[in-house]
């Protein structure tokens, strides 16, 4: 066999398929990948350090910019950490409303993931535009609920910025029915495509042992056959009261990762409807934002949340009035690190579908 010299290719930071500013240094032997080395830090803003210089409720806008496809999820994780430090419990209604909004956020985020995956597989933006159109409908809902489409900053200590509008529930249920129908359309449109299936099945396999060892979380972990979902394993908000099952696939390949997201989208739509039906009466509004919040009573609080990309953990060492130190475990960062393991031995063209199914957001990787 003729061995070509190993070529080092620099993919990114300016490349159409790196979803931002990731830089992958790829060594290829012909068309086979020998080594992938992700380089991160192009989007580093020092979010963790910035929070140390701010009062507690001045930090949420920074948290939202961590993951610009699921801002509310990170905001929620931070606010939950602060609540834990202050021993504040959100009201029962607020728990349900947060659950609904977070699931909507998960839907919006997964839609982006599916859309960009289509693009990475060389489709001319069709799946991308379809997914973004449906995401837009969900953003409409979120706009109704929070007043903003992209960065919501709607989490308050003990609740939310405002109550849900009167017709939100009805609107949300019709939208979820529509989205469920659309997910079926996506599946028939994408999964009946032989080229798609050929490029997804059996490509980029991550075994369950490796998934555990690498510490990946979220859909990537569940696609490798490990039933771990923070919403189920240590339930928060209304998840303990709502019936739902984490979606698990066993193969650990590209297709499983895609399919887990598809199934999670159905589950999210169902969860939103169930949460709306089971929502108790009461007030969801939390404390208004003031510079002086209640004093933190716990020195350390650790909060773990299932954000769309995996498990986000906020480790907060609290001073009475501002964070002493905040450390964020970003699921994107850990999932991105797994690419050097998964992509080894894959073909160069598959690097991008693997990257797409890992679904990292660089804002969250670089923090």
């Amino acid at each position, binding site marked *: 066999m003729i061995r070509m010299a190993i070529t080092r290719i620099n993919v990114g930071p300016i490349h159409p398929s790196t979803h931002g500013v990731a830089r992958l240094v790829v060594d290829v032997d012909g068309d086979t990948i020998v080594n992938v080395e992700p380089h991160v830090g192009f989007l580093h803003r020092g979010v963790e350090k910035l929070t140390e210089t701010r009062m507690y409720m001045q930090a949420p806008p920074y948290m939202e910019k961590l993951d610009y496809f699921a801002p509310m999820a990170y905001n929620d994780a931070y606010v939950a950490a602060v609540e834990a430090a202050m021993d504040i419990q959100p009201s029962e209604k607020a728990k349900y409303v947060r659950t609904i909004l977070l699931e909507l956020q998960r839907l919006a985020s997964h839609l982006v993931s599916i859309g960009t995956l289509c693009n990475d597989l060389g489709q*001319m933006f069709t799946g991308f535009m379809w997914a973004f159109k449906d995401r837009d409908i969900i953003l409409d809902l979120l706009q109704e609920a929070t007043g903003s489409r992209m960065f919501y900053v709607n989490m308050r200590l003990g609740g939310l910025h405002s109550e849900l509008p009167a017709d939100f529930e009805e609107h949300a249920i019709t939208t979820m029915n529509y989205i469920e129908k659309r997910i079926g359309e996506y599946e028939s449109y994408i999964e009946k495509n032989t080229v798609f299936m050929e490029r997804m099945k059996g490509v980029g396999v991550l075994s369950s042992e490796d998934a555990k060892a690498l510490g990946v979380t979220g859909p990537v972990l569940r696609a490798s056959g490990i039933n771990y979902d923070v919403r189920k394993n240590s339930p928060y908000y209304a998840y303990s009261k709502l019936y739902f099952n984490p979606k698990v696939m066993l193969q650990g390949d590209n297709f499983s990762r895609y399919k887990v997201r598809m199934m999670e989208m159905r589950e999210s739509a169902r969860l939103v409807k169930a949460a709306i039906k089971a929502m108790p009466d009461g007030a969801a509004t939390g404390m208004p934002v003031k510079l002086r919040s209640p004093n933190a009573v716990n020195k350390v609080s650790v909060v773990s949340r299932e954000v769309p990309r995996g498990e986000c953990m906020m480790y907060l060492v609290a001073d009475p009035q501002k964070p002493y130190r905040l450390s964020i475990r970003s699921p994107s960062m850990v999932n991105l690190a797994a690419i050097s393991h998964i992509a080894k031995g894959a073909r160069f063209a598959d690097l991008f579908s693997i990257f797409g199914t890992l679904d990292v957001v660089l804002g969250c990787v670089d923090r």
Partner: protein
Amino acid sequence: MLAQDLINNIVNIQFWLSSPSLLYNIIGIVLYIIIVFILFSVFGYLIGWLERKLIARAQYRHGPTYVGMWGLLQNMADLIKLLSKQDIVPEKADRVLFAISLPALLALSIFIILIIPYSPNLQATNLGLGMLIVFVIIAFTPLLLFTAGFSSGNKFAAISAQRSVLVLLGYELPMLISVAAVALIGGGYSLQAIVSAQSGYYYLLLMPIGFVVFFIALLAEFERPPFDLREADSELIAGWLTDVSAPYYALALYLDYARMFLGSIIVSILFLGGWLGPSYLPPLVWLVAKAIAVSVLVILIRATAFRMRVDRVLRFGWLWLVPLSLINLVMTYIIFVK
């Protein structure tokens, strides 16, 4: 006299060329060049617009709307923008090869354009081996793309160059075998003869398998999705065009559309009866209409297809296209010739 002839025989190039007068011959050549130029610049341009519009519609978008009616002039605006930009030649590039590869691709396309007949009387010369020459010239294209890829000194372009050769292995053979079937029942390699032989039934009806194989191979030849591995924008940035800038990139864009139109014309001639059609429209109009229909099909495929991987293209070519084209050839021989 001359004015009368001009009015009567404006697209009848054979009339001008067969005339004993040198003046008439020269007029014929000039007319031919003008007609073909208009054909390919106008329809190449329109196909570019159609592609943007159709793909936009498939994606819940409007496509270009602002410049000109229905955005018809958007591509012109893009062209002007590209022409007014700086032409950058990379430091590592082989300057000569880098500069000539795209114009050479244009030249190859012009070769084919000049050989193809557009109606019974609109052809530069009726070559007996016309079809063979067309496919010989087409086979040169990957070679050019190969040199173009390596000349720019970019690694993505180099990968693209390797891919163009690999893809060539996958599709060139089935394409030629299905063309051989056409020659078998068309009675030779003359494109005129092939079209007139289809006056009974179009070859699309006589050998549908051959048509499908040829169409797929032509998609690969003209870099249309799902075989756009050379230009693979989500993998190789722009493949062999990564370092191509400004006027050259405008040329590349134009060639993309013009070659798609050219390929559609070749498909129309070989399988869809070329300019044959009810006589209330002139032959040239029928040919262009069929070519546009084929182009629309190509565009719609682009709107939905995922890109194939190189090894899969080879696999697909050798496992499906080659056997299918051979079956088509044998069946054609048994049914229509023997």
